């Protein structure tokens, strides 16, 4: 047998003639077979898929699961990703046959429960964010951004202001912001953050021009700091005829405390897989509903759910809509999960979520800043960014610290982001923590700081206990091997 650490591929386990599943057998009387397919497109190329028994498939994937690490396996303080606990109730609900076996194109009379869920989810999202209307179609946060910017573009064209082609984006923003703006046909203008980590209206002024279509902002920002001047900023942008977009990545800090709609934002996307506890699933599916103020509502993707006397209906009558951004209606199963989470916690619970998330982050920040540089030293919101070790004679890098954490069974923080902090370690504990867990994380981080002084080479070599150790990424990119 091969060593446990060596990956064995499905293909290598394959033995000709093994079966993992017997599909339903047709009960048609001796009907013809493959000759129903015209010869010009009938498969001639052999179908080279692996052949395994059900037991082998099971062992293969259980083994792969054991070589993966989720929130259920341990602490995941991955900044900006809001890796909170995923309640198990959320997994059960979408599997009800009334949801799981529902075809997206069935008649509205078959869908009244599903349409009621969409209608309610839109309303609850609007309440939490202070917006007027929501679409649930976007598949992920970045997709919500694209949808919002396409709406902005369409509204500008309508108003005869197509010359507004510039989106202002702070230098601390997520990479998706500029990428989405470019994809929607805008130019990107980077705005510097001030010395205290937030946007300074005075520094924004020079960038205000008739070309500005809007500003994209996260609040709290990616440094975990609340943009205190937000009202001045949104007023300034509105004053020159621009719109303000809220990247909802950090909404977990302020639920029940403040609403983007009240801060003057015109568009807001949510990340249901962050704030509303739907599982990340190894990188997706997410869901990125987009909310707008009433003046942008006519541009939302079609169809919209409307309530009529005969019940809920799809409404395609929206001549100014940007159209569809995705097949069908969005990630319905994810929306069920998010709504279940919100209905479980209610207003009081959601406000406590944000309170606890902010408490936990400050608790860690207060203690970790003794050994690590804290470039913006003030109370944070739900996350904070450290900049490497204070005492660092051996030049231990953020990457080394991240890899060393793996040996403690902790998923490392986000590293090297935001880009404006060198050797950044971005830490977001979320509300789903215990005091014991936070204390043990502080102890581990202190231990690493000590090792950096006494045995730095052990950090540079880490990790030791994982199935593989540091992988050669340069080689992977230089000579890509992307399949069997």
């Amino acid at each position, binding site marked *: 047998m091969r060593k446990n650490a060596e990956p064995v591929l499905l293909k290598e386990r394959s033995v000709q003639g093994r079966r993992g599943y017997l599909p339903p057998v047709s009960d048609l009387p001796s009907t013809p077979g493959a000759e129903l397919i015209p010869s010009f497109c009938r498969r001639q190329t052999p179908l080279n898929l692996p052949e395994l028994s059900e037991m082998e498939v099971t062992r293969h994937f*259980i083994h792969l699961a054991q070589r993966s690490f989720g929130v259920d396996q341990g602490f995941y303080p991955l900044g900006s990703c809001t890796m909170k606990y995923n309640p198990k109730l959320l997994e059960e609900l979408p599997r009800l046959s009334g949801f799981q076996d529902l*075809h997206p194109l069935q008649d509205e009379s078959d869908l009244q429960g599903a349409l009621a869920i969409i209608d309610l989810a839109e309303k609850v999202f609007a309440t939490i964010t202070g917006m007027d209307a929501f679409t649930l179609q976007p598949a992920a946060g970045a997709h919500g951004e694209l949808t919002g910017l*396409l709406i902005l573009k369409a509204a500008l064209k309508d108003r005869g202001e197509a010359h507004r082609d510039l989106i202002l984006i702070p230098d601390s923003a997520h990479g998706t912001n500029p990428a989405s703006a470019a994809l929607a046909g805008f130019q990107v203008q980077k705005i510097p953050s001030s010395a205290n980590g937030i946007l300074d209206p005075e520094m924004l002024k020079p960038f205000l021009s008739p070309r500005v279509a809007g500003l994209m902002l996260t609040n709290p920002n990616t440094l975990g700091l609340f943009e205190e001047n937000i009202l001045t900023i949104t007023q300034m942008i509105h004053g020159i005829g621009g719109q303000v977009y809220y990247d909802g990545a950090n909404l977990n800090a302020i639920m029940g405390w403040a609403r983007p709609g009240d801060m003057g934002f015109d568009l807001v996307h949510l990340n249901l897989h962050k704030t509303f506890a739907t599982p990340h699933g190894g990188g997706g599916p997410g869901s990125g509903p987009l909310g707008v103020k009433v003046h942008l509502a006519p541009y939302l993707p079609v169809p919209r759910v409307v309530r009529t006397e005969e019940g809920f209906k799809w409404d395609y009558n929206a001549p100014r809509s940007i159209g569809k951004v995705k097949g069908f209606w969005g990630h319905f199963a994810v929306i069920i999960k998010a709504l279940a989470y919100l209905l479980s916690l209610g207003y009081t619970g959601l406000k406590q979520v944000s309170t606890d998330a902010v408490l936990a982050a400050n608790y860690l920040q207060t203690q970790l800043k003794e050994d690590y540089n804290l470039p913006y030293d003030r109370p944070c919101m739900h996350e904070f960014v450290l900049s490497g070790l204070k005492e660092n004679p051996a030049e231990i890098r953020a990457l080394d610290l991240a890899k060393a954490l793996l040996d403690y069974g902790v998923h490392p923080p986000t590293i090297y982001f935001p880009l404006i902090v060198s050797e950044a370690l971005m830490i977001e504990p979320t509300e789903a923590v215990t005091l014991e867990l936070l204390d043990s994380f502080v102890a581990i981080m202190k231990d690493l700081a000590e090792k950096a002084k006494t045995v730095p080479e052990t950090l540079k070599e880490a990790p030791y206990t994982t199935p593989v150790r540091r992988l050669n990424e340069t080689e992977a990119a230089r000579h890509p091997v992307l399949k069997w």
Partner: protein
Amino acid sequence: MGHPYLPLTDSERRQMEQVIGVRNFTELFQVIPEKIRAKAAFDLPDRTEEEVKRLFRQWAALNTPGSEVVSFLGAGAYEHAIPAAVPFLVNQSQFITAYTPYQPELNQGLLQVFFEFQSLIAELTGMDVANASMYDGPTALAEALLLAYNVTKRKEIILLSGLNPEAAQVVRTYTANLPVEVHSLPVMEEDPQKQLMASVNEQTAAVVIQYPDFYGRLILSRELLSVVKASGALAIVYINDPVCLGLLEPPGSFGADLVVGEAQAFGLPLSFGGPYLGFFTAKKDYLRHLPGRLVGKTTDRDGREGFVLTLQTREQHIRREKATSNICSNQAFCALTATVYLSLLGPSGLQEVALSTVRNSHYLYEQLTRIPAVRGLLPQPFFHEFAIALSRPPADFFRRMREKGFIPGFKITPENGLGQDAYLLYTSELRTKAEMDRFCEEIERCVQ
């Protein structure tokens, strides 16, 4: 408050405030200007688990899922049998609750799943490279067209008739602000090659051909793609139910440049339209233009084989506004589902499923077109879906069939050029002879 999703207790909160050095947690929120601080609670009560379950059970009961009737509805979302091992295996807690594997040492399992997914999809389509998945078929196609525009710098896109209308709509939304014209060719009843030759020119960036097309037709051929390629445009093949590839020649061997599509059919439930699974494959010439995540094989510092996310310099977190796409996630969990599904089915299973669907569709077509009031539309050979027209059906045809326990397919809207009473019918491997016979009897009764 005590809540199962909130582990901290009040006394722990007090201890934390002390360590932080605040008298009360509200001090931490003083940074929010008074003017925008929320003044009032919103009306959303908290509920116990059982109360939430009850609500969702009630909503579920208001729906009639396709499984409770006999459904011939496909049109972009395809019911297939899902092996019991699929939900069991994909619902492992590590798979569900992991983040994107940015720390490869901790997530070799997930990375290997994506590598296997890429391998299986490349194999099925006959293409050089596949990425680790996209949001869904329509967005995958839209991104394919952005790639074609960026590579060719040409200004015209041709969508051959028979492209899924949802995909066509998403393409139009994505390209609305580009200096690109999108032409949808009308439904052709004659030779597709002629229709195409009359449309492509030196300004064509890409031609999209669905395989089998929205109406189930098999029109893709080596000859058709050679017309596209002779013009210098990219030949893009869109696949809406890749189960078909169990029996169909892979588009790669016809010379396709990009093959993209929707792989919901590989073990994902219908789920009212999502989440589904987009896939994206290309010839290797386009590797560095691909959107989305890619997993590559490499070695670690001890020489052991392992997997990493690779070629990330294409992606938004590095390239920002110059990235090939704004995409920041993949449909990881759905890609896992498809990988498990294909592992269980293997070559024989996939061929058998494809064959059953084709046999069923041809049987149903034959039985239906014996009915005088039913006419087959579109003469081309078809796969597991086909279009029919009814002559003078009752106004409440749909409702009457539904009362008899049938969903008689998808009503094709008149804008598609197939007339008023055209229906698209899909037969999965789950349909039985008895169901189809009963369906034909009811139709006959209903339209006469």
